[in-house]
C-alpha cells in the first residue's frame, strides 16, 4: 500500500469525534503548559506524559501529538511576550520577537509566529509522510554495526551542537549514559550501580530525569537568583498580519521550512541549528537591515518556521530508526515505549495503523492550534501574569506528580530531588542538560547494539566498520568533533547565545 492510502486511513481514525476530542484536549493543555515561562517543549511533554498513561495507545498518541505541537506554540508566545525562552530553539524568536513586542507590535509577532508555525508544521508533516516510509525501508537493512555508528553520530552531534563547548556537552552526555547504566543489565541479568536498592533495579525512569533536570533545576535556580521582575509586553488588538507584514513573512516561512525540515530529519542532533541558520539567512536577505535587532518581522517568521519544520523533521529518525536527536524526541521515544511501541523500521510494518493515526493527528493538531491560537492568544498571554512563585510552586507539584506516576515509590521522589540538585549544578556551570537526556535514552540502546554487534563477530571490533555506511558514519563522527572548532556558524550561534544570556 502506498503512503497516501495509509495516511487517509490514519485520517479516518484521527477524525472520529472521540479522537478529535483527545487532540483538542492535547493541544489545549500543551499550549497552556508550554506558555508558562521557563517550560520548553521537552518539559511540557514530560510533565504531561502521565496524563496519557491510562489511555489506550491510539488516544494516548493523538493526545500526545497535540501536547507536542501545543507545547511548541506556547513556547513561542512566551519568548515573544516575556523574553524567557524555554529552550534554546525559541531563543532566536525571542531576539526579534520580544523587540517587536516592546515596540507595540506583539500582535504581528505572534501572528507571524503562529502562521509560520502552521505553514512549516504542515509542510513538514507532509514531507514526513513521504520521507518516513522511504527511510524506514532503507533502515530495514541496518544491522547492529550501523545502529552503533548512527548512535555515535547522534551522541557526538548532540554534545557538540548544544551548549557552550564540546567538553561540557560531552560531560552532560556522559552523565546521561551513566544514569542509563543504573539497573539490571538486560543481557546478563546483573544489577549495575544499584547498591542493593530495589527501586533502582528497573533503572531510573526517563520522565524522572527529564523533570528533575529541566523543572526542578529551574525552580532551584530561581531560589538562587530570585524570580526577578520580568515584564509581560502588553498585547493590543487581535493577532493579525497587515498586508506588508504578510508580504515580508511568507518568504521567510518558506525559507525557514526549507532549512528546518532537512536538517531536523538528519539522524544527528541539533534541531535548533536551523533556527540560527534561518535567522542568519533572513538577516542577510532582508530589505530592511536597519530593523534587525530592533524587531524585524522576518527574524521571527523564519526561525519560528524553521523550529517547527525541524520538530516535524526530528520525527523521521525517531519513528523510522528509533533515534531521538533532541531532548523532546527522547521523551517522545519514552512515551512510545510506555504505550508498548518500539520505534524503528518495524514500527511502520507492525503498528502502521497507529503511526499513520499519529501523523494524521499532527495535521489535525496543527489546524486546531491555528484556530485556537490566533483568536485566543490574549487568553494565553494572560497566563503569563500569574506570579512566578505560583508558577514554579505549581511546576514542582506537577514534577513530583510526574515522578510518582512514573515510578510510584518514595525512592523515585528522592532520586528526583537529587537529580534536581545535579540539574541546578549543571545550570549554574553552564552545562546543557539536553545531551544528558539523549544519552540516557540512547545509551542503553547503543550498548545493546554494540554488544549484539560484537557477539556476532565474536568480539572482533572490525565489524563496526564493516560496511560503507558505517565507515561513512564514523567519518561524520570525526568531522562533527572537529568542525565546531572551526565553523563560523557555531561561533555565531554561541555569540547569539551569549547575547541572549
Amino acid at each position, binding site marked *: 500500500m502506498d503512503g497516501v492510502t495509509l495516511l487517509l486511513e490514519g485520517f479516518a481514525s484521527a477524525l472520529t469525534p472521540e479522537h478529535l476530542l483527545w487532540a483538542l484536549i492535547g493541544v489545549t493543555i500543551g499550549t497552556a503548559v508550554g506558555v508558562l515561562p521557563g517550560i520548553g517543549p521537552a518539559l511540557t511533554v514530560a510533565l504531561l506524559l502521565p496524563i496519557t498513561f491510562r489511555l489506550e495507545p491510539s488516544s494516548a498518541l493523538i493526545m500526545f501529538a497535540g501536547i507536542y505541537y501545543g507545547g511548541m506554540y506556547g513556547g513561542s508566545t512566551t519568548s515573544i511576550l516575556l523574553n524567557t525562552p524555554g529552550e534554546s530553539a525559541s531563543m532566536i524568536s525571542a531576539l526579534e520577537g520580544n523587540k517587536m513586542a516592546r515596540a507595540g507590535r506583539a500582535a504581528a509577532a505572534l501572528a507571524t509566529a503562529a502562521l509560520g508555525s502552521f505553514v512549516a508544521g504542515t509542510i513538514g508533516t507532509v514531507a514526513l509522510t513521504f520521507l518516513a516510509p522511504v527511510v524506514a525501508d532503507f533502515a530495514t537493512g541496518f544491522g547492529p554495526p550501523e545502529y552503533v555508528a548512527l548512535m555515535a553520530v547522534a551522541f557526538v552531534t548532540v554534545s557538540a551542537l548544544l551548549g557552550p563547548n564540546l567538553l561540557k556537552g560531552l560531560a552532560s552526555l556522559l552523565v546521561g549514559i551513566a544514569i542509563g547504566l543504573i539497573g539490571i543489565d538486560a543481557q546478563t541479568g546483573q544489577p*549495575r550501580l544499584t547498591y542493593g536498592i530495589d527501586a533502582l533495579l528497573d533503572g531510573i525512569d526517563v520522565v524522572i530525569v527529564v523533570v528533575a533536570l529541566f523543572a526542578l533545576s529551574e525552580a532551584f535556580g530561581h531560589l538562587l537568583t530570585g524570580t526577578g521582575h520580568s515584564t509581560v509586553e502588553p498585547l493590543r488588538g487581535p493577532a493579525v498580519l497587515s498586508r506588508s507584514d504578510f508580504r515580508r513573512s511568507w518568504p521567510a516561512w518558506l525559507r525557514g521550512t526549507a532549512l528546518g525540515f532537512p536538517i531536523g530529519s538528519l539522524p544527528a542532533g541539533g534541531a535548533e541549528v536551523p533556527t540560527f541558520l534561518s535567522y542568519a539567512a533572513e538577516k542577510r536577505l532582508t530589505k530592511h537591515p536597519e530593523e534587525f535587532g530592533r524587531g524585524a518581522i522576518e527574524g521571527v517568521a523564519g526561525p519560528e518556521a524553521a523550529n517547527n519544520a525541524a520538530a516535524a523533521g526530528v520525527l523521521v529518525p525517531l519513528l523510522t530508526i528509533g533515534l531521538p536527536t533532541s531532548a523532546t524526541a527522547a521523551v517522545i521515544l519514552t512515551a512510545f515505549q510506555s504505550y508498548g511501541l518500539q520505534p524503528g523500521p518495524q514500527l511502520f510494518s507492525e503498528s502502521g495503523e497507529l503511526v499513520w493515526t499519529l501523523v494524521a493527528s499532527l495535521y489535525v493538531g496543527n489546524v486546531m492550534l491555528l484556530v485556537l491560537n490566533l483568536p485566543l492568544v490574549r487568553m494565553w498571554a494572560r497566563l503569563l501574569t500569574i506570579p512566578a*512563585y*505560583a508558577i*514554579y510552586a505549581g511546576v514542582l507539584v*506537577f514534577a513530583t506528580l510526574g515522578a510518582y506516576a512514573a515510578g510510584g515509590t*518514595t525512592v523515585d521522589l528522592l532520586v528526583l*530531588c537529587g537529580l534536581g540538585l545535579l540539574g541546578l549544578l549543571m545550570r549554574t556551570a553552564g552545562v546543557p542538560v539536553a545531551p544528558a537526556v539523549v544519552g540516557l535514552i540512547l545509551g542503553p540502546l547503543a550498548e545493546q547494539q554494540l554488544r549484539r554487534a560484537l557477539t556476532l563477530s565474536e568480539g572482533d571490533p572490525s565489524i563496526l566498520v564493516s560496511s560503507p555506511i558505517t565507515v561513512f558514519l564514523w567519518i561524520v563522527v570525526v568531522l562533527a568533533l572537529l568542525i565546531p572548532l572551526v565553523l563560523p556558524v557555531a*561561533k555565531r550561534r554561541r555569540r547569539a547565545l*551569549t547575547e541572549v544570556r
Partner: protein
Amino acid sequence: MADELEPVAVDRHTVLATAVFGGLLLVGAVLVIVDAVRLPTTSAVVGPAAVPLPIGVALGAVGAGLLVDARRKLSTARSGAPWQPRAGLRVLALVAALVGFALLLPLLGYVVTATGLFVAAALLLGAPRDWRVVAWGWALAAVVFLVFDRLIGLTLPAGPWGF
C-alpha cells in the same frame, strides 16, 4: 565581530560550579569503575562490564578536563549577577520540603502533602505571607487529585482521610 567571544570574562559562579561538577564527575567515574570491576565475568562474549568501564574512564577524563578548565578561568572570572540573600539556605529548605513530601506522602495522603509542598516552595520563592497561597495550593492539589486519581485512574496515596 564574530570573534570577540572568548575574552569575555566568565561568571565566578559558573566557574566554581564547573569545578564542583568536574569533581562530581570524578567521584562518579570511581563509582562506575568500582561497580564495573566487581561484576562477575559471564559466558557472554561481551560482559556487563564492557560498556561501564570505558564510560567510567571517560567520566574521569571529562571531569578532570572541567576541573582544569575551571582552574584556568578562575583568575579572570568576575562576579556575575548576585544571588539572593541566603540563597543556599533557600535551596536547602526546598530540598527539605521535597524530602518531607516524599516521606510524608504515604502517611498523610496526596492533597495535604502536595499543598504543603506548594506552600513551602511558593514562600521560598518569595510569595507574600498570605492565606491565599495556602488556598491556591489546596485548590491545585485537590484538582490534581480529582483529575488524576478519580478521572484518569492513576492511584495516588489517600492518607487516613481518603484524599
